[in-house]
């Protein structure tokens, strides 16, 4: 069994139309000229990454099923008079790039992942492979769409999550482990990021278990919030 310790875990949820309080959280994180051009997902990533140091020993794993939905919707509707900014911002992994380009924050190892079924497991598998990194940041998020959401081609919610993992057990909140498929446990695969947010918000022990992917478990220390 392999283990990585959870050093930080946080999530955020914005209303369908973000409230003024929610937008106030990000108001001072970026210059107004830059903030106005950022996507909702980019702003959520900015809030999660606020105060999080990234250095050459940090690996970043970014996951999203639908990514910059609102931008994609506008971009698609701009045809045949195509929006260059819409195209630029729609390309995965735009949201993290928006934050890091603003910071002028280079990084060596950055892994943008997408998909839906087994998405959390994909992120965790990549984290366990990045075992040379001193810290591994898993970032994930979705932004609520409009007409694409009506057709189930985009998220219904604005949510984002962050996990910081390392081999450092000191002051950890718990750990994530990886092992072979457990024939004695129920088979369960994640279907997007909601299971990751639930794991972070509830801090209840949980697992993902499938024959082909193996078993990933979250174990939280009792009393930690």
């Amino acid at each position, binding site marked *: 069994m392999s283990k990585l310790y959870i050093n930080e875990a946080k999530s955020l949820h914005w209303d369908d139309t973000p409230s003024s309080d929610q937008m106030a959280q990000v108001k001072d994180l970026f210059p107004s000229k830059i903030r106005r051009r950022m996507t909702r997902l980019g702003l959520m990533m900015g809030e999660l990454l606020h105060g999080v140091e990234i250095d050459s020993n940090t690996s970043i794993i970014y996951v999203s099923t639908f990514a910059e939905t609102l931008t994609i919707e506008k971009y698609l509707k701009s*045809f045949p008079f195509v929006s260059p900014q819409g195209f*630029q911002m729609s390309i995965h992994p735009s949201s993290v*790039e928006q934050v890091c*380009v603003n910071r002028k924050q280079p990084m060596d190892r950055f892994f943008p*992942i*997408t*998909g839906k079924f087994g998405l959390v497991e994909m992120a965790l598998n990549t984290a366990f*492979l990045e075992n040379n990194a001193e810290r591994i940041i898993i970032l994930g998020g979705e932004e609520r769409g409009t007409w694409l959401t009506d057709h189930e*081609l985009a998220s219904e919610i604005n949510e984002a999550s962050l996990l910081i993992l390392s081999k450092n057990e000191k002051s950890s909140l718990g750990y994530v482990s990886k092992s072979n498929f457990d024939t004695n446990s129920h088979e369960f695969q994640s279907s997007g990021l909601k299971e990751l947010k639930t794991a972070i918000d509830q801090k209840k022990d949980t697992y993902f278990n499938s*024959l082909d992917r193996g078993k990933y478990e979250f174990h939280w220390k009792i009393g930690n919030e």
Partner: protein
Amino acid sequence: MVFIQGSRCITAHGDTSDTLDSLLLGKSALKKVPVLGDEGDEVPLALIHPLKMSNTTPRWLNSLVNAFPNLQDSKWGSYNRPIFFTSSNYGVDSLYAFSQDEDTSRKDFATTHGVIEKIRSLFGWGENFSIFSHACVSGGLGIDLASKALKDDEIDEALIFSFDFLSPFVTGGFHSLKILNGETPAPFSDREFGSIALGDGAAYCILSKQKSNIQLICSSLYNEMDSFTGNEETGSGFDSVLLPISKLSKGDLWIKGHGTGTLEAGFLESNACLKLFPDSPLVSWKGGIGHTLGSCAVVELAIAIEAISNGEAPGTVGAIEPLMNSNIEKDKFKTSDFNELLMLSNAFGGAHSALLVRYE
């Protein structure tokens, strides 16, 4: 140690062998096509399939499966044999088509997960896969992590699978940025303006620890995060990704560069290669097959391996004098004069990947 067991591709020139033969002759598969398929400015594209979808099933789906019949094997996607999908377009062609005609039968293919589920089903693959999407360095990421998993004895073999088929979503986008314009690209050429071409492409490579004549020595990744579209102006991103490679390269090296045809990136890339690898010829093949986007690293690796097997590598197709630097090779050359290959890709956001391969 990690070895490449097999690698094949399809491009607008045909299969791996046809693609290599055409590039060795300096042939380009680019044709001028309306940028939105049936309207708009004409731009150079290397298409395997028409740009616009007519049917609800992606026009490339069956040909993708038929191109690689040897991959129809349920061992892929099992616990010890993961799949790394490494593309950039995935379902955007169906998403674009849906946005135009609102035909709900397109929805199954309009998401990344929908397309991957269909491909897995057609190939008979299991559920141990990861889907990477980082524009033109996607292939480099997959190869890097697959190699790591093998070195850590986590897996027995890895399949890196890439496919990118163009649609108005992406051709319209690059055209709006003015880099996909009416001009034919001339990679690494010192001219007044830059231009790129795009192409359809698909490829795979298989990595394992079983010895073969092609060894993957190391990979290097770097992300400048200096601006969205351009590179840091001193070329520091190129230097950063190449430096680890330069410390491990021992032999006689040739370089397959990214070389899309843009000016600034072309100068920065060729400058950095000349500085660290002054004796190494630098080539680009995007003038012959177009830029196949997320699949470019794996497509061009397949062509390079075919070139090694056949003894000759194509020069920089479409290059015109004067060239940007003295290290750029216009003409074909013998791969037996070398024993190492450096594969480079870079992407928006200043993302870079580099792979060092040693061969016998």
